[in-house]
């Protein structure tokens, strides 16, 4: 596939990466919905996003990147 070809205003590479992102987010949510039910899945997704946000923020505050020399 030509990486310069345009699909919906994006290069082929970007279009594939967007599709990949949709699969990565959509697949686990679909599995959660089918396994524990839509309500429980919604709570879990909310809790997961909030929890990962909290840990990322806390860890990032500790680990601030080194200033460019």
């Amino acid at each position: 596939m030509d990486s310069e070809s345009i699909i919906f205003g994006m290069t082929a590479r970007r279009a594939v990466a967007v599709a990949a992102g949709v699969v990565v987010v959509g697949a686990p949510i679909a599995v959660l919905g089918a396994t524990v039910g839509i309500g429980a899945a919604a709570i879990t997704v909310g809790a997961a996003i909030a929890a990962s946000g909290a840990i990322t923020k806390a860890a990032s505050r500790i680990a601030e990147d080194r200033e460019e020399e």
Partner: protein
Amino acid sequence: MKELLITIGLAIIIALLQMVMKGLSRTAIKPKSHGLTQEDTLFWSDWVIAAGLSLTGALIVASNENKPIPTLQVVGCIGAILAGCVFLPFALRTFAYEENAKIRPLPPGGIGWILIANACGILILSSAVAVGVNVYGL
């Protein structure tokens, strides 16, 4: 439901312990008092691997105890784990990193991509645990 929330809590505790151990094992990057960088706040790969191990364990138990497995969910979960192992790194490489393997700053606070990557990882782990709970019949 309770099991899923316990999993999320455990994932966070393990991530924090990882940070502590990494911090203890490294010399400081001056002028900071520790050797941690933002790259150390990425936990998605650990969580995707943990999802794979968790699903494998559940399938082994199901096989040993002749328990039925929810086929569609298991197939979906394998798809989610594969996507996490193959597509997520590719998507992050395309969008989240700029030249010299530096993470692109994205709101809030410039840690947007780290947050997105970690959220994907914990979602994949949660889906594997949900399938496992279904198999164990808790």
